[in-house]
Each structure stands twice: as structure tokens, then as C-alpha cells.
């Protein structure tokens, strides 16, 4: 039986188990949309901007650990998708982005809505393809999904010329993918695992440092078992939040520029760091020379380029985090508990002292709402069970500090690229993936405006997301830097002219709530969270509240500015 390229594409997407795609039509993808109109079992969510489609696919992938799919047209449709692709690339998120392209005969002729999107996205995709023949279409799509989800995951782009989508072919199911040039190594070297056990036995002040790789490889259970078995406290990068329960006594809080005092001090004083699925980003390490100066470092990562890239490690392990941690746990079972928990009480006492003398703190008075208070109340009211997405800046850091994530896949944030405008479309994607979960976007008044048009997507598609805007009338994180390092010259960070968010919500057909007093925070949150449908809850918060602790860029992470 003959199929056209558009039909092959949809068959292949469905064969991957995908039930939802996010997209925006245009001239070069019109054949695909013609097919989508006839589909059952594949939901298409119409976004209002292509960047939103890609962030939504990203949120979808993170919430249910599958592959997200976005579909956009050629030219501006494709270039609008680039920020979304680069965001997913920075955070190793598996998405496949299909872009329309002008017919092959016109490629290179500067045709209407033509751009070289394969050339543009080469440095920000895991891999990308231009499909030049209908014979290659099905196998390329299968390969794209395989690459996106295997090894260190990442975005893959497939550029589809219009004539390929229209061409006819006798469809044949492509065979198993085997690439001679791509064979990710999942299995860790056993010798190295033995070394880790010996290092744990020798360690007096060990710390586990979990990153996004632990979430990706679904190794939270293994991290937790390792921590308990040898009484090792755990910290995490922004991307690793939820890898270890935030309410556990061994939890140190987040590490890095806005990490907790005890997490940063622990790294500064530990003698063993077991780093799993992390890439030692500069926001985590601060000054490399002063990062974990007394520690032996174990690094587990599936991507060999992550190892020795920023810091020298003593025991590198290339492989899947889950497999490596399982291996270590297995070897530890043969050890005496006392050997594994060598000298632990002193170390844990020290950490407890750091925690009690210098906890995360803020002072909630009776007049002005503190943004941290809003996040804490949100945590209480949702019992820590909501999926939280964030925008970027102070809102993101307060969400990371004060919402104590107990489970993986519940914190969805643009960690590596730091993309403002990520949170709302990502929330839509997450809710589409997990319709039974409460999904809340913690936003600032600046970043929410970067993809505010997606409010229409949420309302139209009946995807119920809750938006908490911490409105301080500033681009708060930049203002904070200006306050601390630029003599309070608040150059273009003042955002007193924001729209009326309540009216704005109503204009889009959503509900809008505003809160200006501390004693109303709980009731407004509770009203918004219980409302059926998309809601904006705007909180007028302290204008000049800053995120603390803070490590000035390039400083040692043990030298923090505190409240």
C-alpha cells in the first residue's frame, strides 16, 4: 500500500508510543497537518509561538521521561524553535523537532521561508538530519528517536522538505537501528566500582553530589540506598533536585551559587565526593581551584566528555548512573556496616551545626509579602506533590530553595541555558504528559511575559496550569547583581510597567487572582490551586528581596554572602 511522506511521519511518531505533539502549521508542513486532521490517538496541541511548542515538548519529556515531539514549519517557524532546542540541549532532554523545509529543488535558492536550519542547529542538537529522499524518511525518523533517548539524551532535529512529505512510497517498517559510529557505553568498569567502595571505606567526610543524570537514568532509588547504607549526606545541582528526598535528614539542600550554607560548606570540607550525573557547571563550582579542595572525587557519567572537562577527578566511571550505582551497592552489601559508616557521627554533627547556625531564612513581616513565603506556602498546600516548573532568575532559585522536592521528575526548569519564558509552555507540556498531576509554574513578572501567549494554548486545549507570579516589579536577579556589584545602578531592570495580570488572565479566558497582603497568601493560593482551569495568581512581593546565600561569580563556594 502506498503512503505519502506525511503519513509515514505520523505512522513513525505513533510507533514510538507518542500520544501528544506540540506544533504550529505553515506552508511547508501543510501536508502533515492535512493528515493530523484525520488522526485519532495522536493529540496535536496548537501553541501560539514555535518556541512554546519546543518548550512544551521539553516539559512533556521531563514529566514522564519519554521523548517530546514538536512540529514547526520552515523558515521563521524553524528559527523560532531554536531557543527551545538549545534549552533542551543544555539540559540533555530527549526531544525530536520536525521542521518543514522548502522542496529539495529549491534548497539553496533563498526560497520563501527557507533557512538552513540544519546548519543553524548543528551546535545545539545532539544530531540533525535533512531528509533528501522518501526512501530514507522512515529510517531517519526511527534513528532520530533512538538518538534522542539513548546514551546522554538530547534534542534531534529532522528537516522535512515539502516534496518528500508529498512523495509516495510503499511503506516498510525500518529494521533495528545500529550505527557503527554511535554506541553509548552503559556498562561501567567493574574495577572502578571496586575502587569506589574502597574510597567510601576510607572516607571520613563523604558527600554525594547528584545531578540531572541521576534523574535521566532514573537512579533516585539507588542514590537514596547508597546514602542510607553508608550514612552519606546528599546535595544536588539545580537539575538534580528530586533525585534524593528533600525531607530526608541526610539532605543538604542544593549546591552552588545559591546553594545552602551547609551544602556548600560540606563540599568545601569533604574528603570524598561521589558525583553522579553532573557536569560541574560554573554555577555549581564557583572558583574551580577552591572547589572541593580536600576531596577525592568520583565522577559517574555516561558522556566521556563530561569527565575531566572542568575539574580533575580521581575515579572516573563512564556509564549509566543507575547501572554504576547498582554495581556499587551490590559490592557494598559484602561490607561491614561499621566499615562503611566510618567516623560518620562527627561529620554529620558538623553538618548539623552548619545547618542550625546558618539555615535558609527570611523574615516575613505583617505588611509586605516575601517571595520565599509564597513558595513555602505553595509547598505546604500541595504537600510537595505538585510538578513545579519555573521561569529563570530569582523565581527559579526560590522555587529550588523552598519547595522541597521529594521525588524525581517534579522540578522542571531551564538549568543550563537559563531560558526566560520556559516555565509556562513547559508546564503545559508537563500537564499534557501527566493530566492527573497538579502543575504549577513559579514565575517572575519579567519572564512570564516572554511566552505569555501560551496562556491561550492552555485555555484552548483545557490544559489546566497554575501560574504563580512573584511580582517584584523588577528583573529581580539582574537587579540583585546591580545592587551587590554595580553600585545599585538599576539600569533597565525596573519593570514597574507590567500589564494588569488579572485582566490579562481574563482576556485569555483564564482566571486571575491578585494578592497584596501576607495574611491573604494562603487563601489566594488555595483558591487558585482549587480552581478548575488555568489560573494566574499574582503576588505583589517585596521589591528588593534578594536570593541568599549567594556566591559571587568566580568566588569560592564556601565564601557566601548571607542574609
Amino acid at each position, binding site marked *: 500500500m502506498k503512503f505519502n511522506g506525511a503519513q509515514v511521519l505520523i505512522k513513525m511518531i505513533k510507533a514510538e508510543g507518542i500520544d501528544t505533539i506540540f506544533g504550529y502549521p505553515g506552508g511547508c508542513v501543510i501536508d502533515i497537518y492535512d493528515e493530523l486532521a484525520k488522526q485519532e490517538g495522536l493529540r496535536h496541541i496548537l501553541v501560539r509561538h514555535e518556541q512554546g511548542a519546543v518548550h512544551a515538548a521539553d516539559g512533556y519529556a521531563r514529566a514522564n521521561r519519554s521523548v517530546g515531539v514538536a512540529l514547526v514549519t520552515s523558515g521563521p517557524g524553524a528559527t523560532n524553535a531554536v531557543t527551545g532546542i538549545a534549552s533542551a540541549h543544555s539540559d540533555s532532554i530527549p526531544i525530536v523537532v520536525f521542521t518543514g523545509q522548502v522542496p529539495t529543488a529549491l534548497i539553496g535558492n533563498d526560497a520563501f521561508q527557507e533557512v538552513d536550519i540544519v*546548519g543553524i542547529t*548543528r551546535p545545539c542538537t545532539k544530531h540533525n538530519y535533512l531528509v533528501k529522499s522518501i526512501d530514507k524518511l522512515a529510517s531517519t525518523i526511527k534513528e532520530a528517536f533512538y538518538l534522542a533517548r539513548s546514551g546522554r539524551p538530547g534534542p534531534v532535529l529532522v528537516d522535512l522538505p515539502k516534496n518528500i512529505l508529498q512523495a509516495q512510497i510503499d511503506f516498510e517498517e525500518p529494521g533495528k537501528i545500529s550505527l*557503527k*559510529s554511535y554506541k553509548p557505553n552503559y556498562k561501567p568498569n567493574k574495577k572502578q566500582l571496586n575502587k569506589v567502595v574502597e574510597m567510601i571505606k576510607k572516607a571520613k567526610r563523604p558527600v554525594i553530589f547528584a545531578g540531572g543524570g541521576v534523574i535521566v537514568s532514573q537512579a533516585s532509588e539507588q542514590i537514596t540506598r547508597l546514602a542510607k547504607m553508608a550514612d552519606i549526606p546528599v546535595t544536588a545541582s539545580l537539575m538534580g533536585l528530586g533525585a534524593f528526598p528533600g525531607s530526608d535528614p541526610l539532605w543538604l539542600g542544593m549546591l552552588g551559587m545559591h546553594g545552602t550554607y551547609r551544602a556548600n560548606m560540606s563540599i568545601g570540607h569533604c574528603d570524598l565526593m561521589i558525583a553522579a550525573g553532573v557536569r560541574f557547571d560554573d554555577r555549581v563550582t564557583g572558583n574551580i581551584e577552591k572547589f572541593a579542595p580536600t576531596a577525592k572525587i568520583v565522577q559517574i557519567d555516561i558522556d566521556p*566528555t563530561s569527565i575531566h572537562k572542568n575539574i580533575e577527578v580521581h575515579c572516573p566511571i563512564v556509564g549509566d548512573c543507575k547501572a554504576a550505582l547498582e554495581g556499587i551497592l551490590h559490592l557494598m552489601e559484602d561490607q561491614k556496616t561499621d566499615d562503611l559508616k566510618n567516623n560518620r557521627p562527627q561529620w554529620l554533627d558538623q553538618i548539623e551545626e552548619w545547618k542550625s547556625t546558618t539555615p535558609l531564612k527570611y523574615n516575613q513581616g505583617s505588611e509586605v509579602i516575601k517571595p520565599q513565603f509564597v513558595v513555602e506556602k505553595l509547598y505546604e498546600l500541595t504537600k510537595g506533590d505538585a510538578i513545579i516548573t519555573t521561569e529563570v532568575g530569582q523565581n527559579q532559585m526560590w522555587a529550588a530553595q523552598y519547595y522541597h522536592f521529594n521525588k524525581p521528575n517534579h522540578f522542571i526548569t531551564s538549568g543550563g541555558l537559563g531560558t526566560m519564558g520556559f516555565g509556562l509552555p513547559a508546564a503545559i507540556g508537563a500537564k499534557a504528559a501527566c493530566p492527573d498531576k497538579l502543575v504549577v509554574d513559579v514565575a517572575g513578572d519579567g519572564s512570564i511575559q516572554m511566552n505569555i501567549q501560551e496562556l491561550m494554548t492552555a485555555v484552548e486545549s483545557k490544559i489546566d496550569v497554575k501560574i504563580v507570579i512573584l511580582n517584584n516589579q523588577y528583573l529581580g536577579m539582574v537587579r540583585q547583581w546591580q545592587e551587590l556589584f554595580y553600585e545599585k545602578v538599576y539600569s533597565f531592570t525596573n519593570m514597574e510597567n507590567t500589564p494588569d495580570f488579572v485582566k490579562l488572565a481574563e482576556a485569555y479566558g483564564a482566571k486571575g487572582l491578585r494578592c497584596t497582603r501576607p495574611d491573604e497568601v494562603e487563601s489566594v493560593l488555595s483558591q487558585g490551586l482549587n480552581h478548575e482551569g488555568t489560573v494566574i495568581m499574582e503576588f505583589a512581593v517585596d521589591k528588593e528581596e534578594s536570593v541568599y546565600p549567594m556566591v559571587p561569580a568566580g568566588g569560592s563556594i564556601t565564601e557566601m554572602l548571607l542574609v
Partner: protein
Amino acid sequence: MMNTNSYLLSILVDDEPGVLSRIAGLFSGRGFNIDSLSVASTAEPDVSRITMVTKCEPQIIDQIKKQLHKLINVITVNDLTDKKYVQRQLALIKVNAQPEKKADILRVVDIFRCKIVDVGLSHYTIEVSGDSGKHDAIVSLLKPMGIIEIASTGSIALARENGKK
């Protein structure tokens, strides 16, 4: 740059459009440096060999090799620098051949076992094949005679099965 060394990499890649651009983009995007580059097909269909000379600090070369290997179209990356290998570079050198200099030029050609591949009224074009040391030596000897222009390939190299460097 401080303490830079020269490294010779032999890279097998899928013979597909865009592969060279991926490699060049990797180098420019990460601030690595390509000194010379040579690309051609191999005996195996769909596989090309890229021979590359890169100059960098010793701690960077591992990252370069790993990043190259991470590219989906790169099959193997072989660092020949500390191995035994044969290396060749081909150059065509057009020199001024004034009557009084012709004998000198021919002597150089003879000593270096080069070939004269084109003769004009007032010039010779010389074909030189050898490693980069030989290439540099002949250029320095011909320079006083007046080199008009040079076209040169990048290095190509293969690891030796055994034997000495």
C-alpha cells in the same frame, strides 16, 4: 597559547554531507584550532578519512578527541602523535627559473628527490612529497631563488603496522 603541542589525528567518519561542517563547527565553537586538514574517501564505501593537525595545550587534546568522538558521524578517532606512523604532505612549488639559477634549482630538486612537473620560459613547478620537515627544508632552500606561489595539501598519515617511526 602557552605550551602548545602539535597533535596528529586520524579520524574515520561517515561519508555524508555536512560531516566536515560538524567537525569545523566543533573546533570553532569550542575555541580549538585546526592547523591542517585533509579529507578523502577510503577503501570502505561510505567512510572517509580526515587527517588533522591541531595545536593545543596537552590538557585540551583529550577533550578534543572526546568531543570529536561524541559527534554521531565520527566512527573512530586515532591519535597518531605518540605512535609510529608514516606521514606525507604534497606540495607544488612554482619558482623563478632565471638561466643563472636553473642549475641550482635542479640540484635541489635532485637532492630532495622531487619532480619537475611543469617548465616555462622563466619558471619551474616542482612537486614535493614528504613529511612536513622535508617540505619546510625545500621551501627555505628555494626561497632565495624566488618562489612565485605554493599549493600544498594538509598532512596525511597512517599508523605503521610495526617498525620504527
